[in-house]
C-alpha cells in the first residue's frame, strides 16, 4: 500500500517535471544551465578574481594584501610595459592590413572555376589548421641564425652578402614574427572572404561590365561594398586574436632580444608566471581589457551600421 502510494507521487512528480519542460521558459532554463555553469565558473569568476588579484600584492605562495592601484602605477612607469603596448598595436595593425590585402587577393584568385580548385583550397587552409606552436617551430628553424634556409636562398639569389640574424635584431625580430602571423592568418581571411564572394551574384559584375566599368571600378563599386559585412566580422575575430596573441612570440623570441618583442600576453606571462609576481602579471593582462573592449564595441557598431545600410 505504502509502496504504491510512494510510486504514485513519484510518477506524478516526474510528470510535473516533464510538464514544466513544456513551458518554454523552464526548458530554456534547463538547456542553458550547463553553459551558464561552465562559463560562470571559468570566465566570470576568474575575471572578478583577476581584478582582485591585480589590486593586491600577491606572489606565488603568498596571498598578499589589498594595495589599491599600486600595480597599475608601477606599470605606468615601466618602460618594458609601454614597449609591449606599442608592439601590440603595431603588430595588430600591420598584420591586419597585410592579412586583409593578401587574403582578399587570394580569395579573388580562387573565386573562379579551374581544375584542382577543391584540392588547392583544402591545402591553402593548412597553415590555419596545423597547431600554431608546431608550425611556428618550423618558422623558427627557417629563421635560425646559422642554418636559415631563407638566408641560404637570399644569398644564392645574390640579394644579400651576409647572413641575416632574423630573430636576434629587435626590429627584424618583430618583422619576422609579423610575417609568420600573416602567413597563418591569410588562409582564414581568404577562405572566409571567398565564401563572401560566392554569395555575390556574378550577374551584378557582368551588368557593370556591360555598362563599361573597368575591372578596378567593378571591384571598388560592386564587389567591395557587398563584401564589407563579411570583411568586418572576419577583421573583428582576427584583430582580437592578434591583439591577444601569445604563442607566436613565445616560440619565436620569448619576448627578446632584450624585451623588445613583448606583447601584452607574453609580458604578463613573463611577470606573472616566470617571475611569480601574480598580481602584477594579472594587472598586465587586465590592462589589455579596455583596449579590447573599445575595439569590440567600435567594430560591432560599425558592423551594425554596415548591415543596416
Amino acid at each position, binding site marked *: 500500500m505504502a509502496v504504491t502510494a510512494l510510486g504514485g507521487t513519484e510518477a506524478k512528480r516526474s510528470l510535473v517535471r516533464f510538464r514544466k519542460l513544456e513551458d518554454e521558459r523552464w526548458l530554456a532554463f534547463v538547456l542553458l544551465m550547463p*553553459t551558464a555553469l561552465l562559463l560562470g565558473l571559468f570566465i566570470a569568476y576568474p575575471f572578478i578574481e583577476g581584478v582582485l588579484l591585480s589590486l593586491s600584492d600577491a606572489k606565488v605562495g603568498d596571498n598578499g594584501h589589498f594595495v589599491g592601484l599600486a600595480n597599475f602605477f608601477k606599470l605606468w612607469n615601466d618602460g618594458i610595459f609601454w614597449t609591449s603596448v606599442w608592439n601590440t598595436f603595431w603588430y595588430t595593425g600591420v598584420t591586419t592590413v597585410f592579412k586583409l590585402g593578401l587574403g582578399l587577393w587570394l580569395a579573388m584568385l580562387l573565386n573562379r572555376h579551374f581544375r584542382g580548385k577543391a584540392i588547392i583550397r583544402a*591545402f591553402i587552409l593548412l597553415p590555419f589548421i596545423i*597547431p600554431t606552436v608546431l608550425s611556428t617551430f618550423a618558422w623558427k628553424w627557417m629563421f635560425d641564425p646559422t642554418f636559415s634556409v631563407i638566408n641560404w636562398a637570399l644569398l644564392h639569389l645574390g640579394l644579400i652578402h651576409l647572413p641575416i640574424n632574423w630573430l636576434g635584431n629587435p626590429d627584424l625580430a618583430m618583422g619576422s614574427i609579423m610575417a609568420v602571423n600573416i602567413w597563418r592568418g591569410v588562409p582564414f581571411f581568404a577562405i572566409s572572404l571567398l565564401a563572401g564572394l560566392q554569395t555575390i551574384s556574378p550577374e551584378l559584375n557582368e551588368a557593370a561590365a556591360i555598362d563599361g566599368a573597368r575591372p578596378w571600378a567593378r571591384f571598388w563599386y560592386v564587389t567591395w561594398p557587398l563584401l564589407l559585412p563579411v570583411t568586418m566580422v572576419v577583421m573583428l575575430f582576427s584583430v582580437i586574436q592578434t591583439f*591577444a596573441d601569445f604563442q607566436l612570440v613565445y616560440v619565436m623570441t620569448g619576448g627578446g632580444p632584450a624585451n623588445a618583442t613583448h606583447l601584452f600576453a607574453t609580458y604578463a606571462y613573463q611577470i606573472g608566471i616566470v617571475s611569480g609576481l601574480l598580481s602584477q602579471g594579472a594587472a598586465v593582462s587586465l590592462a589589455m581589457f579596455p583596449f579590447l573592449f573599445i575595439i569590440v564595441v567600435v567594430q560591432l557598431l560599425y558592423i551594425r551600421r554596415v548591415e543596416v545600410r
Partner: protein
Amino acid sequence: MIEGALWRRWVFYNIPLILFVIVLLFPFYWMIITSFRPDGELYKPWNSPLYQPFWTNKPTLEHFVYLFEETDFGQWMINTMFIALMSTAISLFCGVLAGYALARLTFPWAGSLGTLIFITYLVPQTLLFIPLAEIIRDFRLGDSPWSLILTYPTFLIPFCTWLMMGYFKAIPKELEECARIDGASRWKAMLFIIVPVALPGILSAGIIAFTLSWNEFIYALVFLSSPEEKTVAVGVTSELIRGDVFFWGSLMAGALLGSVPVAVVYSFFVEHYVSGLTGSVKG
C-alpha cells in the same frame, strides 16, 4: 568571370596562385625534410661540398626514435587526444542545448543572453590565464588533464553555441510543430526531430572544436607541470629545448607527428570544416 588571353590568365591568376601555394606550404615541406634528415646534414656548413638544402639522400628515422625513446612523446599524444575529445564532447553537449534554447525558444532576456555568449566568444585566453591558474590550484585540478578539459569549453562553448544557433534558426518551425501535433513533447521534438536535422552543423562544430583544443597552448603551458602530463605543443616546447640547444630534428619530427591527427580529421571533413568556419563568420 571575365578573362582575357592565355598569357593574361597566367600572369594575373595562375602565377600568383602558384606563388601563394608555395609560400603557404613551404614551412610544412621544410618540417618534413628536416625530420628525416640526419644531424650530420642538418648542421652542415653551407660551403661544404655537395650541400643540398632541399633534399636528403640519407633519410633517417633517428629523430623519431629519439622522440619515443627519450621523451614522453607517445604519452603527450594520448594526453592531447583525450583532452581534445573530452572538451569537444562537453562543448558540443552544452553548445547544442544552449544554441537550441537561444535560437528557437522565447523567454525573457533571450536576446541579452545571446549577446553575452557572443561577448564571451570574444574573450581571449590570454586575458584570464593568471587568475584562472589560481582558481585551478584552489580546485586542486593543477597538473591534471581535467584542468584543461574543464577550461577549454570556455572558448569552445561560445563558438559551438553561436554556430548551432545559425543552424537551428534555418530549420523551419513547421517541422517541430508537426511533431508536436503528433503528440511529441517539446523535449522529444528537440531530441528526435531538430537535432538530427542539425547533424551537419554539429559535425562542423565538433571538428572545429577538436582542432581548436588541439591548438590551445597557454592554458596547457601554465596549468600542467610534470613531463608525463603535458600536451604535445607544451611537451615539444619544454622538453626538446635544453637551454640554448634546440634538438631541431626531433622538434620537427614532433611537430610533424603532432599535426597528423588534426590534418587527418581535417582532410576527412574539409567541407564541414569550411562551412563551419564561414558559418561562424556569417553569424
